[in-house]
């Protein structure tokens, strides 16, 4: 699958300042970005916007569904979607994330994002 020109990135992060910072970095890199504060809002956006090709989500989030469960749901309902999991703490076990999920440790650098996004695009 080739990357589409309007490919949007959805950022799922409950801390508003961290979310704003990440969104700003991605926008600086030239990506159209959508943001959600929890998994429920993220699912609603995925349902309404088929242009979302990448989901970046934080591990520790409040609400009914945690981010790792979100990766499985996204993998199931939107199989081509790229998944990036970020955490400031422990790296999740491979089996705790949906297949093909990539992990980046916080604090995120533009360099990390570039690298992983390029790898995901190249890999698929």
């Amino acid at each position, binding site marked *: 699958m080739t990357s589409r020109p309007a490919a949007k990135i959805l950022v799922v992060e409950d801390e508003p*300042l961290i979310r704003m910072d990440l969104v700003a970095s991605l926008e600086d890199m030239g990506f159209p970005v959508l943001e959600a504060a929890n998994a429920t809002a993220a699912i609603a956006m995925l349902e309404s916007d088929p242009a979302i090709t990448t989901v970046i989500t934080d591990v520790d989030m409040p609400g009914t569904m945690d981010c790792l469960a979100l990766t499985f749901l996204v993998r199931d309902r939107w199989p081509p979607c790229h998944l990036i999991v970020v955490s400031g703490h422990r790296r999740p076990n491979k089996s705790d994330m949906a297949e093909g999920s990539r992990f980046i440790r916080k604090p995120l650098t533009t360099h990390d994002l570039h690298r992983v996004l390029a790898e995901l695009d190249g890999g698929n």
Partner: protein
Amino acid sequence: MKSDYQRDIDAIGKIDAVPTILDVVCRTTGMGFAAVARVTEDRWIACSVLDHIAFGLQPGGELKVETTICHEIRQSGDPVIINNVAEDPLYCGHPTPAMYGFQSYISMPIVRKDGSFFGTLCAIDPKPAKLKDPEIVGMFRLFAELIAAHLDSIDQIAVSEQLLARERAFGAMREKFIAVLGHDLRNPLASIVSGAKLLMRRHEAEPDSRHILLLMQGSVLRMRGLIDNIADFARSRLGGGLTLDLEADAALLERTLDQVVDELRTAHPDRSIIAEVSVDQPVPLDHGRIAQLLSNLIGNALSYGDLDKPVRVSAKADNSGFELAVENSGTPIRADTLANLFEPFARGEGGRNVEGLGLGLFIASEIAKAHGGTLEVTSGEVSTRFVLDIRATPPARNNSSHPEPND
């Protein structure tokens, strides 16, 4: 039923002196049966017994309390001594001697420190005996007091053990609390970092705002270091130790080290930090931990080194492993301080702006250990130098484990 007083039977069983006491009692008085009995309102229970006359009681064995003279002693609190039942005006008609078939009888109350009645030290024999004698009575009184004192100290130990166990559990809870608190403080702190970055994006061109934001970033950085160290210290006390997330990634290592140096330069714009990083080979490391270690070492060098001299950082990763050195000029560390430098809460003298706990070097050495490496310090007239050494293949080459200070 029996288990109600098992605790008392066990307590008497724990007193090593009791069998000797019973033996001495029998030998001194010539009586054939001696016992320590627990006596309550409705029970008479043998706790320890010496029986030469086949009276037939074992520890745990019971007599009907209302048939015993001990029952009366419990009520009066006074000893009862009978040399010869047949000649005793008070007891010749008493049903108990007839029922149990004894002529001589002595029973001394065992009274606890709090005044409560435990039971008796008693002896009987089918023959008369000479018991109303100050030596015999004094001996019984002394033994009864000794048994009471032992029982008191057994209870005291049990109470102390309970307190200690509670204190230990509380201590562990406190450590856990600190570990969790540290973990939870990281998230709001990360928010502040992001907020400062967002503001910097907008106001970088304004010198005043830029200055304030840089200072904020420096403060946040120090706070993050403190939180990391405290949380790790609590975790190490909980016995979990440091767990590593190892990755061999040369580019990541270089970036990690550069980032720490950059952050500290930003936080200390008036100081000079000279860094020389050469990464030729990826070495399996926990990069977050290495960042923490380097941050602690540079922070230490900035606090204790001469203000007008640079802090020098050198890092080398190659086939043989990873070596990281941090060096500062300044007064040499005293020998006695040097010996305990890596202990938690160790504090040097003459530090400026030093974090309050003295955990930085301890955590740094724990990180080195977790990697199977060493963290060593040499301090001389010219400089103080910390060297982290993580060998790729531990025992293979060991000729450079004590690097000499050199620029």
